[in-house]
């Protein structure tokens, strides 16, 4: 059966009655205990997204707290250097806190308040989801707990410090690979035990269906802004337009592409290819992983023949995840987006080139997207436009960059 995207229906609403996209991605593979909290949240969100007052509230906080719109800039030096397509960046890292995770965190806190919950918990890999949730929780007066893999706590120190400074408790997860995948599992287990008092925020477009929806609905702000910014810059949406975004869980890409779904823009998702000479990676779409169930949803996921979730490796903690949003599985199978990967070394050199030539400093996650832009641009002519979502700031990666490139300067 050929999968198709239905016209005039938001991407997040393309699921069937079992909450599956294209009949095979997503769903709610959850323990009985979570059925009711997930149903309650589903109903509440369905109501809120139609509620004009709530939308006004969201827009108010996006404007005054997150800071919208984030800049849309031409990267003149990079364009000249590569000599091909015109390269632009949507500098989402200028949002409050330094990454796109602030949209989802803010919306979840608003929902938690509506649900009259006093506590909020969330997972984090690169630490941005955790940092933003702790920030927003503080702003909205919620007590916050962040689950983070022990390995990530070590490698993303600046964000860990920010989380602590915001008064949130960090739970160091020492099971399994001690990275994002284990943080999400531990956070879900915590929610199973505390769902009566606590709201859970899943940090990306993964997990049971409702979390995918809330997250993508929140990050959609990125492309809502970008759409008008692009129209303003070019007078219309350019015919040959490529929107390049890194994908780990897939939250920034989903938000970056959403408003362009019915245009001719080409979507390119860049997964983490892992170290150059390693067997390990975090790129299930690029490497043809099979469909499996992870964290409550069916998706392409790195796993062995038995169904045990596989190990991953990437220099960027934010992309170091064995699964991928069911939304991206759906976009891949409908051929609306295409997916490729960049390895650690490519991401590092992309970071180096972009931060040397331009006045932006992308973190290692969007550096994967820049790596693809750098590969593509010279092969295209100047009528083509590439926009990269620079969705995170490199400051959190200063230790890794210093170690790998010898120095880190801002």
């Amino acid at each position, binding site marked *: 059966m050929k999968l198709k995207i239905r016209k005039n229906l938001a991407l997040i609403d393309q699921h069937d009655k*079992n909450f599956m996209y294209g009949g095979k991605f997503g*769903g*709610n*593979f*959850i*323990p*009985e*205990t*979570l*059925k*009711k*909290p997930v149903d309650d949240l589903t109903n509440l969100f369905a109501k809120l997204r139609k509620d004009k007052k709530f939308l006004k509230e969201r827009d108010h906080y996006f404007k005054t707290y997150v800071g919208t719109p984030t800049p849309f800039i031409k990267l003149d030096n990079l364009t000249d250097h590569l000599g091909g397509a015109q390269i632009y960046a949507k500098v989402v890292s200028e949002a409050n806190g330094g990454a796109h995770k602030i949209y989802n965190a803010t919306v979840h806190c608003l929902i938690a308040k509506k649900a009259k919950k006093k506590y909020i918990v969330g997972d984090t890999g690169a630490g941005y989801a955790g940092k933003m949730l702790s920030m927003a929780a503080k702003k909205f007066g919620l007590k916050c707990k962040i689950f983070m893999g022990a390995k990530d706590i070590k490698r993303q120190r600046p964000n860990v410090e920010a989380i602590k400074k915001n008064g949130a408790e960090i739970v160091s997860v020492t*099971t*399994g690979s001690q990275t994002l*995948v284990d943080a999400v*599992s531990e956070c*879900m*287990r915590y929610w*199973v*035990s*505390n*769902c*009566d008092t606590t709201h859970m925020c899943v940090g990306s477009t993964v997990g049971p269906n409702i979390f995918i929806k809330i997250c993508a609905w929140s990050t959609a702000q990125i492309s809502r802004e970008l759409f008008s910014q692009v129209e303003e810059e070019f007078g219309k949406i350019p015919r040959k337009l490529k929107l390049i975004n890194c994908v780990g869980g897939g939250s920034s890409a989903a938000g970056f592409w959403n408003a362009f779904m019915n245009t001719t823009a080409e979507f390119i998702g860049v997964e983490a290819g892992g170290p150059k000479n390693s067997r390990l990676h975090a790129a299930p779409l690029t490497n043809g992983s*099979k*469909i*499996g*169930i*992870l*964290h*409550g949803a*069916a998706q392409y996921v790195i*796993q062995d*023949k*038995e*169904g*045990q*979730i596989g190990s991953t490796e990437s220099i960027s903690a934010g992309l170091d995840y064995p699964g991928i949003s069911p939304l991206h599985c759906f976009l891949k199978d409908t051929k609306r987006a295409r997916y490729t990967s960049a390895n650690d070394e490519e991401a590092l050199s992309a970071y180096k080139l972009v931060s040397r030539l331009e006045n932006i400093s992308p973190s290692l996650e969007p550096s994967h997207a820049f790596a693809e832009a750098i590969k593509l641009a010279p092969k295209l002519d100047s009528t083509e436009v590439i926009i990269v979502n620079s969705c995170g700031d490199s400051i959190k990666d200063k230790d890794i960059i210093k170690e790998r490139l010898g120095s880190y300067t801002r």
Partner: protein
Amino acid sequence: MKSKIALAFKNCKREKRPALITYTVAGDNTKNNSLKILNAISKHADILELGFPHNTPIADGGQIQGSSHRALKNGIKLKDVFQIVKKFKKNNPDKPIILMGYFNLIYQNGENNFLKSCKFSGVDGLIIVDLPYPENKNFAYKCKKKSISFIQLISPTTSKERMKKIVKDSHDMIYYISMLSTTGGKLKVSPKKIIQNYNTIKRINPKKNLVIGFGITEKTISSLKSANGLVVGSMLCKIIAKSLKMRQNPVTKLAKVVYNLKNKIL
């Protein structure tokens, strides 16, 4: 013909006591030891739950995660789980065995293929933690056709409306989760309250066999003995971990503990 699970409950009712249901993980700490454990504890337990481990569980507490980790480290595969069941059933054909685990392993194995192996090795029932009602309808139906009990779970968050539907669609056993917790949490609800909730479900259809699990230990088991069955899992996993640490034999240790548990509900 009555299933072995139904017969086990019938026997217990005749003896006016709840069924003692144990949970251990296949391959913990080795394939051989987990078979020996089953053989040893089956003398005192009425129904045996056997976990097939998954490395990314979303509802297991620390103890069961530990057991699963040990088993997977020792290279346990699904085919070994079925071998353990088959070998156990050779000597204990009437003792019901229920496999418990996460859906991805079944999904990768193929539902039909998995059920064929269940049938071949003598599995009597299945508990799939992350396949709730009504998403489990198709699979539960497939189980029924193969005379394998698909065991539904009910939790304190389950609405009355939903409870009724779950009970109606249930097979030989229903599992009530005592509290909001992953497995092995400390019992944070009073036994009295648990029994109250239990009775609410029971009244929907008194003929259905309803068991209670989560947080049950030597200390709490006797206070819940008016139920049709009681599941003890994490406590057993903890004892395996402890005896390995103390270099004791987990098999004899576990047999003794299960014997004691049984005495508390007689």
